[in-house]
């Protein structure tokens, strides 16, 4: 059996600002080609777990390994190397608002592989065909419909062919049929590319389209609101 691409061993995260821990004894592992869902309501620590895997924050206790690396032990250059191999699809997509949809997808290729514009466009078109994005409109993300925006953000996360993909609340802002279409697209990408996925979501119903491997998280932190 292959070594896990992502491995959380009894991971705890405490924030001194909160009485309850953000994560408590989280255990999970993902091997090549697997898809695992972290399912829980808002405030249950899903995004915290993804941040740990990306080396954005550190666990208070326990161990995290990503592609056999401990993110805590990596310096800035090491973290960049790790993030080149781990695709990340943030909430709301995180597309650059001043680039067209196609330019957003091509950006990692142009920046990391220093490809010529033409070669990058060729790779973008090939990936877009796989995602059924045959005619990508030459518009900025703000003018694209939400499902198209999410699909483009997914394409950008996949363009460097990562072995592991971390997805945070993938269907936020989608509704009705678009939500189901989106989960089917994720499933198809996972099947065709064989990329391992960790998906953080509150959507218990649609996540079943992608995977049956679910790690439930409990609500630990209550958001507080203050009127200005």
């Amino acid at each position, binding site marked *: 059996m292959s070594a896990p691409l992502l491995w959380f061993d009894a991971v705890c995260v405490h924030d001194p600002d909160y009485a309850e821990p953000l994560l408590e004894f989280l255990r999970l592992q993902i091997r090549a080609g697997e898809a695992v869902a972290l399912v829980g309501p808002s405030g249950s620590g899903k995004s915290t777990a993804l941040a740990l895997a990306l080396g954005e924050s550190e666990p208070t206790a326990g161990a995290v390994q990503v592609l056999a690396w401990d993110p805590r032990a990596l310096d800035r250059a090491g973290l960049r190397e790790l*993030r080149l191999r781990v*695709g*990340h699809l943030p909430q*709301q*997509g*995180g597309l*650059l608002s001043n680039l067209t949809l196609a330019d957003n997808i091509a*950006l990692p290729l142009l920046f990391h592989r220093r490809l010529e514009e033409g070669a990058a466009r060729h790779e973008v078109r090939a990936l877009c065909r796989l995602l059924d994005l045959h005619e990508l409109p030459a518009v900025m993300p703000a003018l694209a419909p939400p499902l198209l925006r999410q699909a483009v953000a997914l394409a950008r996360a996949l363009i460097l062919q990562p072995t592991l993909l971390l997805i945070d609340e993938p269907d936020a802002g989608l509704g009705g049929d678009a939500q189901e279409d989106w989960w089917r697209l994720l499933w198809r990408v996972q099947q065709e590319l064989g990329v391992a996925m960790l998906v953080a979501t509150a959507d218990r119903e649609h996540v079943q389209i992608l995977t049956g491997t679910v790690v439930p998280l409990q609500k630990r932190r209550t958001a507080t609101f203050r009127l200005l």
Partner: protein
Amino acid sequence: MTRFLTVADGLGAWLCALVVYALDIATLIGHGLFALAMPWRMTPVARTVLVKQVLFTGVEALAYVLLAAVLTALVLVVQAQVQVAGLGQTDLFGRLLVVVVIQEGGPLLVALLVIARSGTAIATELATMQIGGEIRALDLSGIDPFHYLVVPRLGGVAIAVACLVVLFVTVTFGAGFLLSRVMAPSPPDLAQFVGILAHNLHPDDLLVLLAKTVVPGLLIAAIACHEGCATTPTITGVPRATTRGVVRPIAAVLLWNAGVTTVAFLT
């Protein structure tokens, strides 16, 4: 006594914050210059951002700078000829022009125009990107926001400011000469005009001009980038970054120019 200590405490905290801020900006400029000094390490896509910044800050501002140069020529060059001749101090005319146009007015006016256009634009754009999670998304996809967003803007604004100042000075003198032919009572001919300027232009003046163009360009871009990236995710985050992207570069440029003038005067 307690009130005095409170005031002293507040003043000390403000001074400390000011020093830390100045060090932040100096560090940002230092790292930016280091990256710009090795253009072969710059990715082609970052170079494209730099070129776009030069186009926005430099080329798209040409009309404003040319207008400012012609109006300055009208106000300054023609007035100087008339007034200085009236005072019987015609030998001061050339030096006055060099000091006012090359050393002080030109660089300052161009810097203010660039702050008004590009300082606000950079601070607003980066603040919006920060609040929208775009900068974090870049970082998490392995694209260093410093090298992709900040370094090209530093280089682009510095290059554009230097070019605009050279253009401003040239057009001011050219328009000043032409206008004086029409308006001044006893205008010099072209050879005399150039001779007056050449006679009064010292190598030190060019050093001062260089110091007052390149550094303000870097200051404007660095402060605008800093304010944009350091914005907070609140409803006032973007407007506050925009305001600071204007006010702080103005203060920094005025301080820098005053410092350079003082050093030049003392030496």
